[in-house]
């Protein structure tokens, strides 16, 4: 790991390389590609939340003028179970059934058929001509009812995974996860205070502004090219190949610019359908979701019921903690209950705990990753319980957390011992922060909570090429959602010792660069960044060898300083230093173009912790909440581009505030989402929020050349607890469930 004092460009905030195209409207997003001879596709979606599909007849649609292809579940191969890598998780067979329903429609909006036609209007008319016979089944909508022994089953083949013995009867419980340590009973017996609660949070959506979109074209040899907005085109290619039963080599995926994802674009919805339609039609097919489809048919995150019991001594030391989690998976398995279980107690050094989590099938959309998937729901409960303990003990909530904070060497609840981590540093920074030292404004309440995410590494590749003039091209494979091209340029410029402006980073398609796992899990700057640094080191080694050959010295006698090969001290070579431009200019004589590459499976993604606090004001006559101030403090390891690190913290805070106060999936009794639009799925608008103050803590991650920890996921975790605890402080009443919408707050005030 480099010493911070040595850094020249890492830690500065230059303009991102893709910036100008994005402020002028030139940047091409998912829906921005039109091809010659292109058809427009539309998807027919189930009008029932739970129904057996008895017959799908496409013939009338296919007979229509202008309709070139129609497909239904019968056109797709049935898959055996098999895991897919990455944050998307879940079983490929389930993803395949989610892309196109087979025997059953499992939620309102589940894809049942699709058409491609000369215009959207004709495609819409063709959907009306498709005949589907449904046997409507009772929808299962409540997670606790779904767990009951007599519940209607979504899947007769669902036998709970994760139990010591596979059960002999199917149920809606797809999986169970459990972690335990110590002696729970003794722990609670040693407690001076014990708090307990049950906390419910409905499904919430990532809310990216760009709807899913793709254009696919399959030629007569069966070779497909797919343009789409995705967090990972390599993983989309893998999924599509499996779902269609075709070869990876026959699929080329090009990632467009991506208009937000937050985990929601780590899994395919449209791409296999577009390829199938294009193959049948022999023409390019474009599929774009409407906003309503995005809400109804792409993965939100799990609704949850979490029960927590925590005991502590008078001095604040936690003696025991117990939790029970039930997470909605939607109609098909894949809920993030594992991370929910692993994260709930992760910030704390606990001797005695038990946490068990259940993943439950309900007739709602199949969930997908959403920023720190699974952690906000469970950690909200723990952070609220800690707030209750701090109140009972009359202790500062930061002191309570400091008293129990995990540190280097603490064994994480999920197994490993933490390497250096920044949780205590975040708490200390909060205690000294002027916003924390300031009085809580009259009539307002203050809430504090912690956040955490594991962060991941995994596989990445990068290539670095030196142009004839010495300029540098970095080629990697992670779609840039929030400025990662700039981070790659900074790390490459730092490593090579050249100015930032000399480097350009490109996101290659699946045929022009090596495999990179999805942009997600807060892995890109860490893992792909590490690959870029290694590829730059490869360049430096090559340059030193060429300089040595040029000078007729041993390559050990060449050093690399500030982007220039120089003779090592004491080497008696009367030569001029060779810059990258010099070496590039003479490349034809020294071995041809200069190229560096690296591929790796990055290990040691350091966990990222945070402390957030906020002052909220509640209108006690209407239940409206006003956010007066919000402060986010987070360990970034090392902020490569601090402005984009702040942006992650601010954006995550805004999403978390929205989730805590107003956002929710609202269902009617038939399982139809009632608020499938931005009008009534109430994400924060600019006038809902104050400036969001940030402080970046830097406790370097020893596993990364510049000390990077992923920063994208952690910011959404703390705000749920922060808001809950601030509202508690403001009105003197604990509201257990989210969102704390005005009617819920007013009802609580009235009941008190």
């Amino acid at each position: 790991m480099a010493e911070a004092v040595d850094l020249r460009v890492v830690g500065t905030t230059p303009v991102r390389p893709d910036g100008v195209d994005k402020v002028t409207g030139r940047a091409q997003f998912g829906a921005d590609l039109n091809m010659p001879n292109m058809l427009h596709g539309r998807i027919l979606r189930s009008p029932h939340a739970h129904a057996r599909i008895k017959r799908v007849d496409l013939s009338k649609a296919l007979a229509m003028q202008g309709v070139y292809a129609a497909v239904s579940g019968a056109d797709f191969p049935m898959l055996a179970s098999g895991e897919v890598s990455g944050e998307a998780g879940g079983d490929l067979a389930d993803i395949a059934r989610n892309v196109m329903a087979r025997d059953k429609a499992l939620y309102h909006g589940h894809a049942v058929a699709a058409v491609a036609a000369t215009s959207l209007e004709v495609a819409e008319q063709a959907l009306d001509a498709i005949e589907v016979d449904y046997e409507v089944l009772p929808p299962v909508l409540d997670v606790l009812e779904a767990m009951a022994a007599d519940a209607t089953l979504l899947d007769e083949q669902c036998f709970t995974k994760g139990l010591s013995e596979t059960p002999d009867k199917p149920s809606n419980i797809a999986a169970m996860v459990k972690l335990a340590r110590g002696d729970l009973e003794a722990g609670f017996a040693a407690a001076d205070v014990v708090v307990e609660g049950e906390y419910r949070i409905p499904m919430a959506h990532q809310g990216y502004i760009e709807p899913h979109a793709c254009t696919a074209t399959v030629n007569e040899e069966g070779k497909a090219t797919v343009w789409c907005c995705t967090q990972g085109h390599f993983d989309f290619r893998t999924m599509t190949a499996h779902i269609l039963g075709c070869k990876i080599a026959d699929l080329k995926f090009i990632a467009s610019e991506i208009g937000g994802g937050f985990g929601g674009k780590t899994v395919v919805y449209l791409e296999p359908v577009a390829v199938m339609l294009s193959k049948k039609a022999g023409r390019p097919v474009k599929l774009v979701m409407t906003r309503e489809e995005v809400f109804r048919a792409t993965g939100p995150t799990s609704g949850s019921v979490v029960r927590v019991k925590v005991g502590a001594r008078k001095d604040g030391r936690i003696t025991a903690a117990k939790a029970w989690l039930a997470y909605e998976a939607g109609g098909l398995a894949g809920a993030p209950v594992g991370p929910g279980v692993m994260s709930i107690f992760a910030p704390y050094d606990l001797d005695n705990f038990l946490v068990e989590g259940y993943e439950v099938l309900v007739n709602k959309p199949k969930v997908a990753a959403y920023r720190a998937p699974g952690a906000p729901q469970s950690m909200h409960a723990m952070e609220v319980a800690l707030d209750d303990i701090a109140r009972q003990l009359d202790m500062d909530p930061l002191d309570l957390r400091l008293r129990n904070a995990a540190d280097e060497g603490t064994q994480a609840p999920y197994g490993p011992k933490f390497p250096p981590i920044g949780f205590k540093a975040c708490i200390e920074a909060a205690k000294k922060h002027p916003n924390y030292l300031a009085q809580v404004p009259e009539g307002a309440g203050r809430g504090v909570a912690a956040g955490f995410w594991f962060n991941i590494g995994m596989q990445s590749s990068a290539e670095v090429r030196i142009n004839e003039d010495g300029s540098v091209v970095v080629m990697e494979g992670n779609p840039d959602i929030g400025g990662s091209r700039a981070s790659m340029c900074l790390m490459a410029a730092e490593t090579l010792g050249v100015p930032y402006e000399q480097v350009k980073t490109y996101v290659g398609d699946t045929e022009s660069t090596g495999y990179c796992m999805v942009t997600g899990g807060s892995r890109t700057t860490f893992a792909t960044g590490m690959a870029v640094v290694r590829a730059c080191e490869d360049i430096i080694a090559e340059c030193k060898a060429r300089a040595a050959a040029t000078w007729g010295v041993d390559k050990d006698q060449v050093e690399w300083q500030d982007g220039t090969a120089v003779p090592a001290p004491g080497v008696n070579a009367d030569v001029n230093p060779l810059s990258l431009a010099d070496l590039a200019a003479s490349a034809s004589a020294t071995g041809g173009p200069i190229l560096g590459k690296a591929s790796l499976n990055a290990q040691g993604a350091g966990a990222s912790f945070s402390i957030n606090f906020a002052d909220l004001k509640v209108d006690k006559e209407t239940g409206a909440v006003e956010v007066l101030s919000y402060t986010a403090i987070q360990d970034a390891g090392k902020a490569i581009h601090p402005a984009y690190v702040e942006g992650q913290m601010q954006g995550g805070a805004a999403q978390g505030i929205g989730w805590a106060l107003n956002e929710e999936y609202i269902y009617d009794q038939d399982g139809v989402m009632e608020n499938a639009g931005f009008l009534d799925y109430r994400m924060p608008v600019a006038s809902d929020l104050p400036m969001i103050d940030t402080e970046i803590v830097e406790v370097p991650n020893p596993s990364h050349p510049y000390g990077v920890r992923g920063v994208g996921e952690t910011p959404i975790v703390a705000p749920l607890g922060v808001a809950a605890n601030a509202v508690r402080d403001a009105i003197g009443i604990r509201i257990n469930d989210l969102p704390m919408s005005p009617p819920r707050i007013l009802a609580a005030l009235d009941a008190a």
Partner: protein
Amino acid sequence: MSKVHVQTTINGDQVEFLCVPQQTMLEALRDVLGKLGTKEGCGTGDCGACTIMLDGRLVCSCLMLAAEAEGQELTTIEGIAGPDGLHVLQRKFLEHAALQCGICTPGFIVAAKALLDRNPNPDEGAIRYWLAGNLCRCTGYDKIVRAVQDAAKELAYQA
């Protein structure tokens, strides 16, 4: 279905096109006129990604029929940068890292320009309420508001 013939001005250019009667201006911009900088986020006027100027007023192009453009003057994101380069707002959005994914950015820039054209010195509240119809899910708005404030300051200095 008989098409409607429309003559209009877009970013100063005389433009003629045919549209179906129910086609929105957003669809005409993107699918007929190839102006893909204007984005669709919702199609129902709730996100502002399709914001354009129509005869000096800010509108959602998804809530306007293309046929209504007859005889009007439109400005889209493609018309914001001039021959001298980026508009101050565009530059400030870049300098302040006021975009992450960038899909909402064209709408924000058109809307912010309309604000500064009317009110060269807006306070934070005025900026936030003016831009309340533009959803951004990445930034939490902080850096966007700062970019607009800074642009206003620079424009005032130039004036």
